[in-house]
């Protein structure tokens, strides 16, 4: 899947979704037929707090152009407190990423409940548009992974 110079730029986007709220929200977006770009690929994790900053670095290293983390609304976490940890960790990680040149627009934390299919779809549309406008991510890429 190489992107030729004359082709329209399509970003690679990894979305981490917690099993209880956001993954269900994505399912609802699906069953309500609320479209969002195919560039978004979802990875299911039990809770947003399971997402190790390492996973996000790895994604950028392997050529992702944007990473979004979705969890339950603050206070609604299935495990009570998981999303609070995620929020703190990501605030810190994203500011460091911004510092080294991975713009803030490429990373996002969003709260999507199981009932918010429309929000999930709208969020993804918005995020893809944002990342597309930023273009290909050139930082952090592992040169050995070029294909």
């Amino acid at each position, binding site marked *: 899947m190489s992107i030729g110079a004359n082709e329209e730029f399509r970003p690679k986007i990894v979305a981490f979704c917690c099993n209880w709220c956001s993954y269900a929200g994505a*399912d609802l977006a699906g069953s309500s037929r609320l479209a969002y770009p195919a560039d978004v690929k979802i990875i299911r994790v*039990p809770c947003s*707090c399971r997402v190790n900053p390492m996973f996000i670095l790895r*994604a950028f290293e392997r*050529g992702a152009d944007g990473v979004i983390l979705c969890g339950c609304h603050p206070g609604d976490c299935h495990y009570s407190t998981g999303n609070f940890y995620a929020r703190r960790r990501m605030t810190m990680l994203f500011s460091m990423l911004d510092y080294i040149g991975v713009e803030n627009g490429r990373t996002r934390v969003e709260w999507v409940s199981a*009932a918010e299919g429309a929000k999930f779809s709208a969020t993804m549309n918005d995020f893809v548009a944002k990342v597309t406008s930023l273009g290909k991510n050139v930082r952090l890429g592992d040169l050995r992974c070029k294909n």
Partner: protein
Amino acid sequence: MQQRIGVFVCHCGSNIAATVDVKKVVEMLALEPGVVHAEDYQYMCSEVGQAKIAEAIKEKQLTGVVVCSCSPRMHETTFRKCAERAGLNPYMVEIANIREQVSWIHKDMEEATQKAVILGRAAIAKVSLNTPLKAGESRVTKRALVIGGGIAGIQTALDIADAGYEVDIVEKTPSIGGRMSQLDKTFPTLDCSACILTPKMVEASANEKITLYTYSEVEKVSGFVGDFTVDIRKKARSVDMSKCTGCGVCQEKCPNKKAPSEFNRGLNTRSAIYTPFAQAIPNVPVIDREHCTKFLTGKCGVCSKVCQAGAIDYEQQDEIITEKYGAIVVATGFDIIKLDNYGEYAYDQSPDVITSLELERIMNAAGPTKGHLERMSDHKAPKNMVFIQCVGSRCSDGRGKSYCSKICCMYTAKHAMLIRDKYPDVNVTVFYIDVRTPGKNFDEFYRRAVEDYHVNYIKGQVGKVTPEADGSLTVHGVDLIDNKQIKMKADMVVLAAAIEPNPDIRKIATMLTASIDTNNFLTEAHAKLRPVESPTAGIFLSGVTQGPKDIPETVSQAGAAAVKAIGLLAKDKLLTNPCTAQADIMACNGCSTCANVCPYGAISYEDKEVRGPGIREVRRVAVVNSALCQGCGACTVACPSGAMDLQGFSNRQIIAEVDAICR
């Protein structure tokens, strides 16, 4: 060891196959390393489809299975059970969600197929690193908690008790009975509400399996399905329940009768020591400390003097009761919305503009007017009454609720009919947008209001209600069928205000970690197939807490919730989720970071002998209690040395997925 992976791609009829080139997906995924078998089928979840998976597992000695189909929330369990029957560990199955995440949201076939292949690759990458897991067991406390003592909670508790299990009802107000106890008559049979509710309340209080905690609130919930620990705050009643005989003298003699009556929706007042209504259960009064003279000034004590049983106890403190439960049923019910946003209806300006629930109290023989229909301003009998439907329901302007409150059309028909029956000289006009009467004998009921009782139904909304100087009200409405604006005089206006979930529900949902929707209704595990269960295991939904409902629906849902709770309580052991955290003792340095972030207290520390190349020493290391661990993974990220990992969602597995997606 290289895994032997089988890939199964489902067409889901045309649900997937219409936008994803299933054959192409099979072809592409067959090329992945480790894949020894790949096929597609119309319906993988069908018996034939499952047989294909089982057959391939046996014939090709598969060690891992990837099913590209619908959401794992839908059929993961189905395919895991299928694998287990075929002799494969059920946790060696992964699902690639190519329906909800691909075919249903994408239109372009090429793009969708490509995405399906990528999701398939991610699942294959993950399954290659899966390890067989075994579910543990946990015990079930054979006792249920019902939060809310309205008709939903009472019915659920009665049904659970009937099956032989202990059940506790926690009710916030001083008496059980809930919203239904405030109603006068019920549609469509016009049964007297109290006559059908009171026996149920009595039954609940008399049942030896049922414990009532009234004037109490749930304070804290911990634990998980089968083994919840709940703190219940029994608020100080200031009356000793064991001594009180319910004679009612204290309420009669109480000199402070200025507190607004909650039960009568503030239409009249009650004494500071009170039971909400005559048939209250338990029939033990409560001192409202915010209005009691004794508590406000220290001087009074009349109730204590007149109480022959010596039950009054001004010193009484709140009490916390801690109890263990296997299942929790939420039945917190509803209230009607505040009308602050609807100034045009003049609810705040005129006492003659009332809500339907207030009318319910006015028409009730035990209500503020002893059941006599009169204006609250001058106590005169009204001549013209106007009902306005959909006040705050079906709104998308941010002022009201987006949903239909469901019960208003029917209770308005009931009110209109009862008024026309009892006071034939009163003209009744109903402004409606749609009349919605799905339900057994419901439309016939509404038609009776029109045909037999000549209630004037006008299709159109009311723009505003103006209070006039002479005390009457002018209603500015429209008749959309006649295409005419209507300006009519009314003596009373009744607003069918939208219903909303009990405001306490947010707090309760957070304690239970039960998910809640944007309207504050609790979310069900599946909108169609699991309507009385919360996605959080062990939590069940009863009544309006799940969505707007009338009484018959509430009662049937209450029964359904009870059955689900009984099904859980009947089990001796539950299988636990084996996707729990595990510490690598070689890497653990015993720093306690993981224990600090664990919401379940599942991590403890032990001195263990660590053996490795050149190492043989005793270290303090983390040990996860897999019965307590719920598998959130907070510890795995917090661990500074990377010793913690989550089975089923390990670091290597998630990284493999990331790699496959970004490839």
